[in-house]
């Protein structure tokens, strides 16, 4: 994907992220996650039915990379089963760490495929995925 297009996708998701704002509706699991550099701070909440992520929402303050990654992650994961989500999170992590990964399962998330070159931004890009991983762990 061309760099300009990648930047446009990231920027669009930063400036107009999907599902921003939490809900009081029942059936959601909520996780707060903070970047260890003590800057980004977001809440992620997800609702599952029959092992499928039917909704994911978030709120908080975070940088362009974290916020956009959360938005694209939400779009990518809604409608997926827990196993599919686990596979996406694992492959995304590999990509962020500069390891071999399966680009086919990541969809638009591949816009972060050069983040590995900026060590300080890796945590930002992975922040919402940490929350999803924790949610999967919590629901057992």
């Amino acid at each position, binding site marked *: 994907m061309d760099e300009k297009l*990648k*930047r446009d996708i*990231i*920027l669009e998701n*930063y400036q107009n992220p999907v599902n921003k704002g939490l809900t009081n509706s029942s059936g959601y699991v909520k996780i707060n996650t903070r970047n260890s*550099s*003590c*800057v*980004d*701070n977001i809440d992620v909440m997800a609702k599952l039915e029959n092992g499928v992520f039917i909704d994911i929402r978030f709120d908080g*303050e*975070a*940088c*362009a*990379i974290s*916020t956009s990654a959360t938005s694209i992650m939400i779009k990518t994961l809604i409608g997926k089963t827990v196993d599919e989500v686990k596979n996406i999170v694992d492959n995304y992590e590999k990509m962020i760490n500069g390891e071999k990964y399966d680009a086919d399962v990541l969809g638009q998330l591949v816009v972060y495929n050069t983040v590995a070159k900026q060590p*300080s*931004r890796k945590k*930002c890009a992975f922040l919402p995925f940490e929350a999803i991983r924790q949610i999967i762990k919590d629901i057992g």
Partner: protein
Amino acid sequence: MNREDFEMLNNSNVIYFDNGATTLKPKCVVKEVVDYYTKYTANAHRGDYTISQIVDEKYEKVRDKIKDFIGATRRDEIIYTKGTTESINTIVFGFMKNYLKPNDEVLITKSEHASNILPWIELSKRLGVIVKYIPLNNEHELTVDNLLRSITSKTKVISLAHITNAVGDIRPIEEIGKICKDKNILFVVDAAQSIGHLPIDVQKNNISFLAFSAHKMLGPTGIGVLYGKYDLLNKLVPNEYGGGMNSYFESSGELEYKPLPERLEAGTQNIAGVLGMGAAIDYLSNIGLENIHKYELELKEYAVKELLKIPNIKIYNQNSKSGIVIFNIDKIFSQDTAVFLNHFNICVRAGNHCAKIVKDEINVSNTCRASFYLYNTKEEIDQLINALKQQDKIFEIIL
């Protein structure tokens, strides 16, 4: 000023505006540390051979330098620690834990660094002392009026930063010291951000305990100082027991610990760090802290004047009198601004500056901080301004 003394400035084109986090080291400090490792590596206090005697003498001479630098009465009021955090924790858990009673009150503020908040919160959990926050004014600064209003008959300790790292305000410690003396309150001062920037006199300011780190005053990392008034410090219970702090011990359990300062310095200390700290004190004393403070303030005022000319820049501490500027670009997350400035080789800090509850006061949880020191220049500030003027390119650059 004195840029030629700093190898970092000769070796790179970096513009270093993160002096609140740590400072660059002048050649004389580096030389002092290298000399220890290349000319007379030996332990202190083992004086039977020449190089150890050299080390011993230098090591103890630094204690005298520090005593004079902060205006202490006695050399044994100076304890070497690994830095401000260890110093404050030692004060809280070695002294205050035994001195304070449940429901005694400790006054701090929300703009303190984590290391002057968390030990007190931890002590309140364990001992039931009450930690109270003195309200700050509209400029997020501490006023004597607010301090006086917060004092009750139960106030036993006031613990404050001399200069805060998140707001950059200078506290009127002389006046606060007088109040503490009149009301028989212990006064703990976190001098991490002020040491090396402003003169301090522990006697004149009636300071009970003082904590600072060498690395924020041109010295090495991993070394700092705990000062305590002798009668108080002598009651401080050591946290560490072992070599160097005991006079003798028998298998029967009979033992005696050494007097101050050795009693509070168990084990081999950071000797290279101590010697480097001594060189930093000499260096700063030669320039004069008043001159440094005046110059930093000039830089800060220049930066504020120029920043105000740029649209979309919000400054949070326009009037504070230290070399710290806290700002944001409107609607841009502070970390993105810091990453953007890094593309211009400008180092600033983004985040909450380890003062995580100051957000309650300034209503913004993340800011950029440019903190100046003696080697920074107006030309460097011009480069910051020039970079910030290109803010419309931020996402093009960082993404």
